[in-house]
């Protein structure tokens, strides 16, 4: 086990921890603002084209969305548990839970893939590639622009999340983390929870609100 040494400009490890955590929170603020813009645009157009958004939602399968919601909530739980085990000096269980988080994230992406291919099959492509013919309301393509942009950006964050979870998993296996030093796991965990939280808003807005 290699002991972590705090950087020279901090007083001690706690000092470094609180600064790092603040940095992560500030970064997450920017993520929330960024998604917030998309939500604002969503609400504006939902207000402008209620029939379009109602029709668009009928193409989505709420059961798939609900499944993915449960999957992500579970993954948030395993993520939190892995931090707990880092604090308890139990690297083995921490690694196991990080691996579980990764698996759940992968399940999410597989479900997303199935959903996307179903849409593509129908010709519900994003933007100018939209080729579905049976639309009843105007600008149905716009609804799917929102669907693909919002879930696409969110999916990209899931992939990035999987990347950083793999990184802390490798470090946890190496025994880098212990009750005195687990900053990276904490930071990745916060990121992961915010990504989940964004999905918690995406799911009802896209799948349930007609």
């Amino acid at each position: 086990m290699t002991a972590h040494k705090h950087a020279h400009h901090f007083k001690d490890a706690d000092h470094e921890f609180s600064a790092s955590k603040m940095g992560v929170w500030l970064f997450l603020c920017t993520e929330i603002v960024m998604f917030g813009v998309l939500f604002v645009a969503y609400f504006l157009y939902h207000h402008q084209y209620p029939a379009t958004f109602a029709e668009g939602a009928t193409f989505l399968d709420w059961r798939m969305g609900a499944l993915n919601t449960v999957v992500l909530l579970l993954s948030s739980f395993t993520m939190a548990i892995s931090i707990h085990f880092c604090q308890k000096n139990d690297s083995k269980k921490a690694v196991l839970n990080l691996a579980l988080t990764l698996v759940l994230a992968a399940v999410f992406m597989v479900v997303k893939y199935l959903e996307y291919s179903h849409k593509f099959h129908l010709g519900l492509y994003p933007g100018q590639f939209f080729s579905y013919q049976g639309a009843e309301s105007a600008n149905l393509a716009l609804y799917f622009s929102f669907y693909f942009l919002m879930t696409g950006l969110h999916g990209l964050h899931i992939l990035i999340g999987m990347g950083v979870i793999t990184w802390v998993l490798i470090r946890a296996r190496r025994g880098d983390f212990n009750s005195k030093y687990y900053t990276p796991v904490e930071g990745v965990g916060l990121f992961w929870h915010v990504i989940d939280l964004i999905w918690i808003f995406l799911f009802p807005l896209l799948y349930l609100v007609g």
Partner: protein
Amino acid sequence: MSNLTDKNYLNCEKGLWSWLTTLDHKRIGVMYLISIVIFATLGAVFSLLLRYELFSAGKDFLTALQYNKVMTYHGAIMTFMVLVPGIPAVLGNILLPLQIGAKDVAFPRLNLLSWYCLMAGALIAMISLFTTGVDTGWTFYAPYSIGSAQSGTVFVVLGAFVMGLASILTGLNFIATIHQLRAKGMTFMKMPLFVWGLYATSIIQIVATPVVGITLLLLVAERLLGVGIFDPKLGGDPILFQHFFWFYSHPVVYLMVLPGMGVISEVVSTFSKKVIFGYKAIVYASVAIAGVGFLVWGHHMFVSGQSDWAGVLFSFITMFVGIPTAVKIFNWMTTLYKGSIEFRTPLLFALGFLFVFAIGGLTGLFLATLSTDMHFHDTYFVVSHFHYTMVGGAVMATFAGLFYWWPKICGRMYHELSGQIGFAFVFIGFNVTFFPQFILGAMGMPRRYFDYLPEFEHLHAVSTVGSTIVNIGMVIVFVTLYRAWKNGEVAGDNPWGGTTLEWQTTSPPPHENFTKEMEVSGGPYDRP
């Protein structure tokens, strides 16, 4: 008294590689300075092309399309590559940790990464020069930017996005640094005012930049995929683009000016040998400007078709920005009052700032007023107004700061007379360039046009002469600074009798900034 052969941050490691991989905030600041001077030179060349094309009526050496592209590059480079990173990334990087008695910023690696983001973004944007370029203006308004035949748009927009990341990382780093790394005893109300300026700036960077970031990505998606969110043909709303764009781009002009105001507070206090008047008022004014700045974006859109009520509300809130700004200006003037003033180059630039920024601010009120804005909208009046605030304000303050801290940054003193001559050229040239543009605007000269009616010719010619003078001034300023760096006289640790912490360490400072733990008891400007 320091000796320049001692180990300091400049000579502790050698070679280009040691610079490109450095984690030292001071070195990163110097790298920012060099890159931004290069970008500014490029932006200035574009501005001279514009001014010389406009020297006389009719087509001279640019076609209308070329003119539009040159104008776009001038605006985009000066905004995203010079003014936004300008004071925070250069002076902020070098001085923030020194002023709060810290060894470095909170996240040195992130700090270096943000410089690389700026470089990468600049590179991506510059790729567009090898395509057919971009002609949208720096504002990239939809739907023109969606349909424009110029293929460089995507590169410039993506470049601006990546440079936005740099800005976010700097802001994040500074907030964490200010919260976590202040010297013992330095409460928030004992921080130097430049630090407060940076704090207010960083809040804007964190809150506003993601908005423009996603908006620019949506614009890229619009061009590549045709998603339709800003495209009226597909049911989208181009006005929404303007809302999102100005939600960032209005606060961003305060992002350019707030740290500059911080510089002015330092310079005015030091060179009048007085405690700053109304420290708390200046602090609250900084935060108020940052906060209110988020609620005024609609004043860019008075004629866009937004509702009358929105117009009235935005007009009212915009007026409100004048109050904290005026509070600051009165505080600086009161600080100067009965001070023992020393007219050195930094103070001259600070006084220049007061003069031009007052004009820039007051003409802002003309534009915030609904009825007068109907007349001035999209004329040279607007062009002149924002150059008075952003160039007159931000650039004058940058020069004030550079001359003020140059002895600290490189340990050597600049040549006073050449500094003052540089100031004279910049100040006179700037006013000769832009004051006629107020008159042109009031006469009805529209902005962005490559040609004009014959009656505007005299004033355009005067403006072009002015732009030449101001650029000569810029060259004098940078030659003065460069010569000081190379072989100026050794400056000593505290040549101005400054009271803030950066003057208590050697010049240039050692790698770790201070040789001992710093501790603070009194206010930042207390004089013994």
